[in-house]
């Protein structure tokens, strides 16, 4: 079936508008990151300027380096992701397989935690971490991120596990694999797409998180989102440096996105089209 010219044109038009809306800020930041602070403030904004790598130099290796913060972010996000997956995979598998009473209600609870406004939890979390002396620490940060990422990861993974017919595991049991190897050799390889998606989402959520990072972090653990925020100060805002830092922070996100595009799109649609083929 051939689409009419008008339909194609309007589709392209709409796609173009959205693409512009989404990419414009990124492109603007990219442009700004190569400007000197003076050029940034030029009014009207100019597209023609002498590009400089100074911002990147400062942001990466200068006095305002964000390298330690990138490392902090990476450590927190990695801890969070690894712990989340270690706990979420068995939990999701159990939820998918066992006929636990209250499974539905539990599923709803998991979703509900995703709907709470995080701001409401900051003070209790702050007091809690303070009490146990985990403020401004990697373990404290990871623990708090886990409370969000774990329910989300479980919820996402359950649908992947549910897609695998029980008979396939039973076949493995009869083929003398035993429960553990039936899981490792037959179930796990089939949900690797789902695991990849979940890893990416969990990692990016932790990487991009700002609110908890700024309140519960400090001098020891200052994540890159917080460090970027510090370019905005009372006296002045260093827009060009901020832009360079933003680009540096976004780079792994975009790379990861491009790399795992196929998985992500499938992950987003898996709930919508259940049973639409695993392969």
């Amino acid at each position, binding site marked *: 079936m051939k689409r009419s010219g008008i339909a194609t044109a309007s589709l392209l038009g709409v796609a173009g508008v959205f693409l512009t809306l989404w990419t414009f800020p990124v492109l603007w930041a990219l442009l700004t990151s190569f400007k000197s602070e003076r050029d940034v403030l030029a009014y009207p904004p100019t597209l023609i300027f002498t590009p400089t790598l100074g911002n990147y130099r400062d942001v990466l290796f200068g006095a305002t380096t964000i390298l330690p913060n990138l490392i902090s972010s990476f450590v927190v996000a990695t801890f969070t992701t690894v712990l989340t997956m270690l706990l979420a995979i068995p939990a999701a598998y159990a939820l998918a397989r066992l006929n636990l009473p209250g499974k539905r209600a539990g599923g709803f609870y998991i979703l509900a935690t995703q709907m709470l406004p995080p701001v409401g939890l900051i003070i209790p979390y702050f007091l809690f971490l303070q009490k146990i002396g985990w403020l401004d620490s990697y373990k404290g940060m990871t623990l708090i991120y886990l409370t969000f990422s774990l329910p989300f990861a479980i919820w996402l993974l359950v649908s992947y596990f549910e897609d695998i017919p029980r*008979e396939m595991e039973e076949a493995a049991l*009869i083929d003398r694999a035993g429960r553990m190897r039936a899981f490792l050799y037959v179930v796990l390889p089939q949900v690797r797409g789902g695991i990849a998606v979940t890893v990416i989402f969990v990692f990016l959520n932790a990487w991009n998180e700002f609110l908890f990072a700024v309140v519960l972090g400090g001098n020891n653990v200052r994540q890159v989102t917080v460090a970027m925020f510090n370019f905005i100060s009372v006296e002045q805002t260093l827009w060009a440096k901020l832009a360079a830092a933003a680009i540096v922070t976004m780079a792994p996100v975009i790379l990861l996105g491009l790399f795992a595009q196929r998985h992500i799109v499938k992950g987003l649609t898996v709930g919508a089209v259940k049973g639409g083929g695993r392969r």
Partner: protein
Amino acid sequence: MSNGRVSLKKIVKRHGAFTALHGIDLDIEPGEFFALLGPSGSGKTTTLRIVAGLEEASEGRVFLDSTDITNTEPGDRDVAMVFQSYALYPHMNVRQNIAFPMRMVGMPKGEIDAAVQDAAKKVHIEHLLDRKPGQLSGGQQQRCALARAIVRKPRLFLLDEPLSNLDAKLRLETRGELKKLQRSLGVTTIYVTHDQEEAMTIADRMAVFMDGQIVQVGSPKFVFDNPATADVANFIGSPPMNLIPASYADGRIRIGAHELQTSCRVGGERNVIAGIRPSSVRIGPSGIPARIDLIENLGDALLLDLSLDQMTIRARTGTEVTSREGESVFFSADPTAVHLFDAVTRVRIND
């Protein structure tokens, strides 16, 4: 060691308040091709899964060669199974699928390769070893599942409706091959099917399941000739046996105002269900008058729907019958081919 005698003793299976199996007793001989036959929902799969160890019996015991395996893990029972859905591992190619059961017991690679080749050859899929299950047709997937089952020499094959997902032509072909394969391997096989014709043609013996109970065990021919209840009679044979409410006295069966002769002799007068196979109904110059409602020509035979007092009686006759639809004819039955069942218990009364 590989004998393969299976005994089920008083197996009960409950799902909450619902009882799926009401005390199954069954003995299967070594090397036998044994069918579990019955309508859908009668408990065949449940029975097979209990033998496999995939499901626990609520009561009763399972024996394999006089070892009590009731609580043995599936992997330790030395059985192989083909699932209705085949349950192939989609991320492994055919070779890896077939090799899986041997890999799990750490067999040396060389031996595995040889065994895979051998099994694949027996089911004619040697040329497909490097494909993924998703790239196979239904029939090829079925063979792959079969190869995975025969690759090790188990004591027992369990097959759950293995042909039901194949188209009619392939089902017939595969049925024959399966039978030959089983003969050559000599491994005890339990075969679940709801298709009576399949069970009749393939099995050495069969058990007929109804509502979670075994109503009859025997060779297909014996069960066909001597159905234990009216329901078994109705289930086995196509088209099914005519079951006619009647009364019996002195070798005569009264159906309304009409009479049929039978060679059965049972004591006294009683209400019965007279069972007559369509192929035993005779159309002739005398007998019970009936009207022909419908004639279906099967090529080598005719299938007549006769109506008698609101009842439909089916007859399978030779093509020499020249009557037409709407005409009245007389029918009778071969007196030696009339089955009698009790009108209340529906249990067979003649022998």
